[in-house]
């Protein structure tokens, strides 16, 4: 404890605090940009530490401060716009963005900031106490335990599916198959790469998350020409967030603990950790009905976990010299620069520096919260701005953010492809969170299955105590889910005949309509609120008055059914294709894709029969009226995606910077119809941002045929 206190006393120096503040500010700015997280923040600051030869008491707070604050700002775009700033923030989007849609953005933001702060502080405290005991703890967690934990993670699918469990399973299977693209973990075989070197290491998590949530959301809102809040009056203040934070302190604590643990273990990572925190919140809640529809509790778990995870990551870094994630790896580079060798001897030789990191983490989180807090109110106003005004900047930033991951042109295509896919899923009421969970856990699941199988006999690993505990945890929600499905089946099977599902939807332009709200079979019963709302708002916009919308579109549920069926067929096609392709692989590379695709085929077959039955039912009950508004909506979403596609296509010719300007100007002129001078300011700001990022943050922009990506760097 003496070392901990003496390390704390260094923060009494103004200069140390100043560098911490600088790091926090930098982390906040980087986190604000979708797609960029802790890695970018540390990579940005590291050269300054080296070239300015900062002393250790300045360098470490600078770097750790950035890591501690990134999570505060990366939820901002997630909550306000539905664009997770990092993949880990996707779990926060589930309820956080729904709150924003209901006008409670300030409430959600302030709660998120407080949870991030608590995550950071609790993580640091956890770090302090675990350092002496973490070693045996980490070592008891072998390959079988990590394998079981991954299984447990995938099983969360049932909890983040908003009741559409079957669709959730299909989405998770798709996610796992997408996660298998690239080299197989157990053998040197490349799967589903179609001969492309770009795909050899697999699809990037950042690009997939940006596409499936970010681009999908932006295009959706652009197509419906709405703001996020959809005209809902802003309500709720930051104080509400503080109240929820105090009321649910137990959830905060639990979320942080899950986060620390996810960070400590190799192969689990922040995204899975955040979803696990979400899952355990839902699993243990008495009233589950509001999750996914703007329940503040759904925001607490993942937010507390996110920042705590960064502290957890430091445990293997400091104790074993094994960085848990990229930011920790860069931090390790800084430690080497200061002649501090991470590893078993760190605690005996450099305890003061260890605690200096711990305290920077805690203080950095607090400072970041204090800085963010006053911004919650003003930021919340963003939800009332029509999204098409923000869209060009958002699309440009998302594309450039995704590109940084590998500096490959392919990243932009991945973002675009998953954007379209995400929009389709959204329209068809497929939950998107299970896809991301499946994607994240696919590789660790397969990797640790093979390691377990190779290194243990079945009896050896299945009887390990932690494995048994996790088996028990695993079975509980499955049993509960089964009971729930059976019960709902029984309830809804009785009136399964022709029914008028549209009665409740007809006049609804509000976000609560939920197109499939009254559908005959339970799977669609708890569609995420607002999914139907955006489309209906588009309808309302096109048709001037809600009444006329009703007259031309008496059965919106019918269109919903076609969408649902269509996407189910698409999913089935992908899964069957994966199964067929997997037939050609080596035995060790074949097992996982085959297993997942067989389960997927089973789920998708059941879903398909249900969907076909629903389409028939809808057709019987519907009168033959042209679905003009639906067609109009389809046209506008296609136009929206055509706009998004402009960026990757034009980049091939003009390079990124010029494309960004051309795109922003054209979009604002044609779509947003802004005034000339506003467009000019917007364009200059876009170039300015890109200039700053390339000059000071070492960003790379994709080159085109005629121009360089960043022409100002031309030799």
């Amino acid at each position, binding site marked *: 404890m003496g070392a901990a206190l003496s390390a704390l006393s260094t923060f009494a120096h103004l200069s140390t605090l100043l560098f911490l503040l600088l790091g926090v500010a930098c982390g906040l700015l980087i986190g604000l940009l979708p797609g960029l997280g802790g890695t970018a923040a540390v990579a940005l600051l590291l050269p300054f530490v080296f070239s300015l030869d900062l002393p250790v008491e300045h360098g470490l707070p600078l770097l750790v401060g950035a890591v501690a604050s990134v999570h505060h700002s990366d939820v901002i775009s997630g909550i306000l716009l539905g664009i997770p700033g990092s993949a880990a923030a996707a779990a926060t989007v589930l309820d956080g963005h729904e709150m924003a849609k209901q006008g409670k953005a300030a409430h959600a933001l302030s709660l998120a900031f407080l949870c991030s702060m608590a995550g950071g502080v609790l993580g640091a405290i956890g770090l302090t106490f675990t350092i002496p005991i973490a070693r045996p703890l980490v070592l008891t967690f072998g390959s079988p335990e990590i394998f079981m934990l991954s299984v447990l993670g995938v099983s969360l699918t049932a909890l983040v599916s908003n009741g559409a469990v079957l669709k959730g399973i299909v989405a998770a299977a798709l996610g796992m198959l997408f996660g298998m693209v690239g080299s197989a973990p157990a053998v040197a075989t490349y799967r589903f790469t179609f001969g492309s070197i770009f795909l050899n290491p697999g699809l*990037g998590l950042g690009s997939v998350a940006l596409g499936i949530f970010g681009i999908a959301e932006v295009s959706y809102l652009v197509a419906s020409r709405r703001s996020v809040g959809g005209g809902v009056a802003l309500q709720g203040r930051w104080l509400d967030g503080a109240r929820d934070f105090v009321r649910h302190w137990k959830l905060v604590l639990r979320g942080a603990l899950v986060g620390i643990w996810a960070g400590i273990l190799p192969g689990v990572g922040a995204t899975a950790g955040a979803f696990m925190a979400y899952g355990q919140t839902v699993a243990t809640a008495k009233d589950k009905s509001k999750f996914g529809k703007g329940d503040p509790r759904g925001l607490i778990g993942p937010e507390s976990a996110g920042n705590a995870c960064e502290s957890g990551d430091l445990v293997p870094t400091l104790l074993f010299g094994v960085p848990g994630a990229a930011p920790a790896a860069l931090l390790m580079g800084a430690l080497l620069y200061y002649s501090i060798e991470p590893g078993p001897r760190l605690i005996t030789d450099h305890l003061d520096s260890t605690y200096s990191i711990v305290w920077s983490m805690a203080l950095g989180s607090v400072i970041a919260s204090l800085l963010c807090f006053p911004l919650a109110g003003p930021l919340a106003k963003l939800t009332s701005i029509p999204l098409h005004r923000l869209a060009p900047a958002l699309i440009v930033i998302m594309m450039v953010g995704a590109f940084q991951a*590998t500096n490959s042109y392919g990243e932009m295509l991945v973002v675009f492809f998953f954007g379209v896919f995400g929009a389709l899923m959204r329209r068809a009421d497929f939950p998107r969170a299970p896809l991301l969970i499946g994607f994240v856990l696919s590789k660790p699941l397969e990797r640790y299955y093979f390691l377990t199988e190779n290194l243990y006999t079945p009896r050896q690993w299945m009887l390990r105590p932690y494995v048994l505990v996790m088996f028990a945890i695993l079975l509980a929600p499955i049993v509960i889910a089964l009971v729930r499905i059976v019960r709902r089946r029984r309830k809804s099977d009785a009136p399964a005949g022709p029914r008028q599902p549209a009665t409740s939807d007809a006049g609804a332009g509000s976000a609560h309509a939920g197109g499939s709200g009254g559908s005959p079979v339970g799977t669609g019963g708890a569609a995420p609120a607002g999914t139907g709302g955006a489309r209906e708002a588009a309808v309302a916009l096109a048709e001037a008055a809600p009444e006329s919308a009703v007259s031309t579109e008496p059965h919106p549920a019918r269109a919903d059914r076609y969408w649902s069926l269509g996407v189910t067929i698409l999913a089935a096609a992908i899964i069957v294709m994966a199964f067929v392709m997997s037939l050609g692989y080596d035995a060790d590379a074949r097992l996982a894709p085959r297993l997942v695709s067989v389960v997927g085929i089973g789920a998708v077959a059941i879903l398909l029969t249900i969907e076909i039955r629903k389409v028939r039912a809808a057709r019987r009950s519907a009168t033959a009226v042209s679905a003009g508004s639906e067609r109009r909506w389809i046209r506008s979403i296609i136009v929206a995606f055509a706009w998004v596609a402009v960026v990757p296509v034009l980049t091939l010719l003009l390079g990124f910077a010029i494309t960004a300007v051309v795109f922003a100007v054209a979009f604002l*002129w044609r779509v947003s119809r802004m005034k*000339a001078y506003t467009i000019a300011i917007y364009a200059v700001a876009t170039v300015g941002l890109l200039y700053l990022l390339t000059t000071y943050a070492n960003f790379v922009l994709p080159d085109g045929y005629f121009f360089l990506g960043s022409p100002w760097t031309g030799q």
Partner: protein
Amino acid sequence: MKLHKRGGTRAHSGVRLVAVAATLTLVASGCVKHGGSTAQSAKFPKSVTLVVPFAAGGGTDIWARLIATSLHPLLPGNPTVQVQNLPGGEGIPGNNRFAQQDPPDGTRILVGTGSSYIPSLLGQKGVQYDFKKMTPLISNGTGSVVYVTKASGIKTVDDLFAPNANLRYGGISATGSDLGALISFDLLKLPVKATFGFEGRGPVALALQRGELTIDHQTTAVYNQSVKPLTDKGDAIPLMTYGVLDPASGKIVRDPNFPDLPTVPEVYEKHFGSAPNGPAYDAYLTFGVALYAFEKTLWAKAGTPQSITQPYLDAVAGLAKDAKFQQSRTEALGSYPLVKGSEIAKLTQQVFNISPSVRSYVTDLLKDKYNTSVQ
């Protein structure tokens, strides 16, 4: 956008058009991409970019960042030296891009590492770079130690050959940096059971400590950081090193960091009674020893004027005097000499002119023993 009501008069949109055009002209002016014909001026560039074809935070990246800082004051005109990461594709796309697109004018320098060398030595698909067509500038070797854990029951290097030795090795991928270990095991005819699929050497080290694995190799720096403390307690037992090439005699000698440990060839000779030879030994020389001799190296493209490459060679002396850099790089790689590229140029040419017999030996080994085909 069909849904939008048309707003603004025609005159208004005319103004807008002019503004748009003006903005575009402003942006486009003076930023036409310079064609391939870069002037072959021999002036040292004002800014140098070290290209790391891997993600930020890895060993190569950290070494590059350390040397970037220290090179800045030693090069003519004190250019800015920055690191650029081109991750993805196991380094292949980043290396390809350097080899095919970057100009030979010293503005961009490649940071080479074993993980980049091996795919080209194996002739892996997609490799479009050739280190024979590059000039080494500054090179930093490293070494590797083979050790076992207490759980293996092995106490001395002779126990390795016991018929029931419990040897379990964990690797990332048979076609990657594990190759040196696999070839050594094959050379010594050790019955090692290898499991691949670990995410990195770090998780392998954890698995060893958990008792899931029993035999491992680590580079000198990692060994000193993470394994040495365990050897002091008797939990890990170092057995042998790969040895280093003595530039004077061209022979393999003991690793100066581990003068007490025998080299793999020494162990072979002691057990089998004769010096090793044949394709297995040639492969060992390439993948076990030579690659480590220039494990981290700065490469310029062939055709870079000598007035630009020479300052790097001259900077080696300056780097040797930079105490801070020396200490940091020793921690990152172990204490191996930093050498001028000119001293290892012959060796690199030899290594990358890999003989067909060595290549087919490695491909057969991977195919027969590890059921892995080189793709």
